[in-house]
């Protein structure tokens, strides 16, 4: 497959799909760590991020989160014989070149992070799938991307509009309030290592960790951990693992986080921030059911399998 075919986006507004920057490629492979044992079968991961940090506060935040995610993935991977390499691309041609290069390598998997609008996210997902890469959606909330436009190669760390609406509805039932903002992360969170993550981010960037920063950080973490744990030999194997019950990751939110097999949406607690009271409420609310199964609790937010309009199209021979 040629690079040109992989990024054929003629139907999309050109300006819309200018890849403002390609920020990073993460490679596990170097074995500089002193101790090497139990190296995963597939030891390299490239993460390519589209979006200039300077163009919007959301992109700037995600960029910081991704940067921290890469540093930490590097540190963790080195314990198990891996390493990290960062590459940058400044155009979609660069993206195509990097994806094609990575695809030729027999010993690496590729993750793509980028996009801010539904159109961008959709296009990046398509391109990623064409190059046997996994696209992790960090900023696009449109239900359509989890429904009719879903793709096997696309996973969503960003909460969907449906999840956000459910979160708002739950929080309103509990304590009707005025203005409510639904977030995937909040800089005031404390429990289950949230304080440590918030402090680490603030110490690194001198600013608060936002939902977008968290999404960038977690997108890298979840891919790198999946590779360390599952040692997948192909993108299809990685997708299969991420869809399985075995794949859970810690996002410092107090529950094991996992992707829904039917639409690849990340199950996660959300935080309803009431501007009037400056109060942060975690949803789903778990009154008296603290040890209830996390998947069941987190599936209270968003579209269940029966309501899902997603039917994955075959990617790389996978149904």
């Amino acid at each position, binding site marked *: 497959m040629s690079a040109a075919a992989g990024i054929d986006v003629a139907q999309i507004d050109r300006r819309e799909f200018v890849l403002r920057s390609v920020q990073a490629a993460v490679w596990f492979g170097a074995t500089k*760590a*002193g*101790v090497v*044992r*139990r190296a995963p079968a597939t030891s390299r991961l490239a993460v390519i991020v589209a979006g200039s940090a300077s163009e919007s506060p959301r992109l700037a935040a995600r960029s910081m989160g991704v940067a921290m995610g890469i540093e*930490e993935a590097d*540190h*963790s991977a080195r*314990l*198990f014989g891996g390493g990290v390499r960062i590459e940058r691309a400044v155009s979609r041609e660069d993206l195509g070149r990097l994806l094609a290069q990575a695809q030729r390598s027999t010993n690496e998997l590729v993750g793509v992070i980028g996009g801010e609008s539904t159109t961008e996210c959709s296009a990046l997902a398509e391109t990623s799938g064409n190059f046997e890469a996994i696209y992790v959606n960090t900023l696009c909330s449109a239900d359509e991307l989890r429904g009719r436009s879903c793709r096997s190669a696309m996973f969503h760390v960003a909460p969907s509009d449906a999840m956000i609406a459910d979160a708002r509805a739950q929080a309103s039932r509990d304590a009707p309030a005025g203005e409510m903002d639904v977030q995937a992360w909040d800089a005031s969170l404390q429990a*289950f*290592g949230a304080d*440590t993550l918030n*402090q*680490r981010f*603030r*110490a690194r960037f*001198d600013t608060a960790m936002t939902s977008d920063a968290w999404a960038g950080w977690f997108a890298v*973490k979840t891919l790198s*951990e999946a590779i*360390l*744990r599952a040692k997948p030999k192909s993108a299809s194997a990685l997708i299969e693992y991420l869809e399985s019950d075995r794949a*859970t*990751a*810690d996002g410092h939110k*107090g*529950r*094991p986080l996992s992707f829904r097999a039917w639409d690849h949406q990340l199950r996660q607690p959300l935080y309803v921030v009431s501007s009037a009271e400056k109060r942060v409420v975690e949803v789903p609310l778990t009154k008296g059911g*603290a*040890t*209830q*199964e*996390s998947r069941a609790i987190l599936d209270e937010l968003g579209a269940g399998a029966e309501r899902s309009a997603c039917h994955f199209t075959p990617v790389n021979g996978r149904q």
Partner: protein
Amino acid sequence: MRIQRGVSIVATIAMVRQATPPSGGLVFVSNEAAHSISVINAGTGRVETTIPVRSRPRGIQATRDGRFVFAALSEDTLIRGAKRRDGIAVIDVSARRVVRELHSGTDPEQFAISGDGKTIYASNEDAGTVSAIDVHSGAVSATSVVGIEPEGVAVSPDGRWVYVTAETSNSVSVLDVAKRTVVDNLLVDARPRGVAFSPDSRRAYVTAEIGGSVSMIDTKTREILVTQALDGGESKPVGVVVSPDGRRVYVACGRSNAIAVLDAETLKPVGRVAVGRRPWGVTLSSDGTLLYVANGLSNTVSIVDPKTLAVTTNVTVGLKPWGVAFVRPR
């Protein structure tokens, strides 16, 4: 010290029994939010005194000879560019006061003391390292890279290994004490917290808070032999301690508000004790006859009889009790 008859002095829940005579000795409790150490007389179950410390204490350990208790102190907030004042407070058990402070490397959370009392191994939470500190000189003699957010630290009873868990990297790093270097890293379930060795040093037990499980490691082959989920993986296991006879593993389950009792060979749950809210640190008396549990949200320490699996006393301590250390009678 002669063992005294148990008298429940401060009981905060109804389930209080006095069936078992408590051990002698003292229990030191780090109160994270109160910036203090409560000293409980293990004979009476009474708080004997409270020792103020200058900042947030978490990890707490006693030397084997019972002369000193060490408590890790961290700054409450991290201000960029500001000089940190983290350290490990040294408490003289007889004097019941802080007599010295060791520099620990940054943000010490947990640590372990070598059997001879000469070396402290401390995890530096924000640096992803573990430091070996010479107790006599106070100097850091070695620093090793471990996973991100290192947490639990334990020295094997035979003195050969130091195991360090790391919460973000999901790792257990194995330090060879003689070689003074990390010789292996194991990948365990999400957010590993506590680690404890069997008395014969053949096994290590690691809790994973988000994974909701306990893993048993063969310290010779360094293979994970069994991973046991507790309460369907939703129990939030944190503190872990092994009985002196090596037959039982006690795990503080933070979300279940209980101690899970596991068979040390199979990790099958064999019992359960309801304690206070968010139990965290856990330790045993040196003779194994009483179990002490710090309940972080109840501001109590539950004293549990491992034989009957009943809470004998709940002792009110300071705000957010984090860790417990038993000091044997001298």
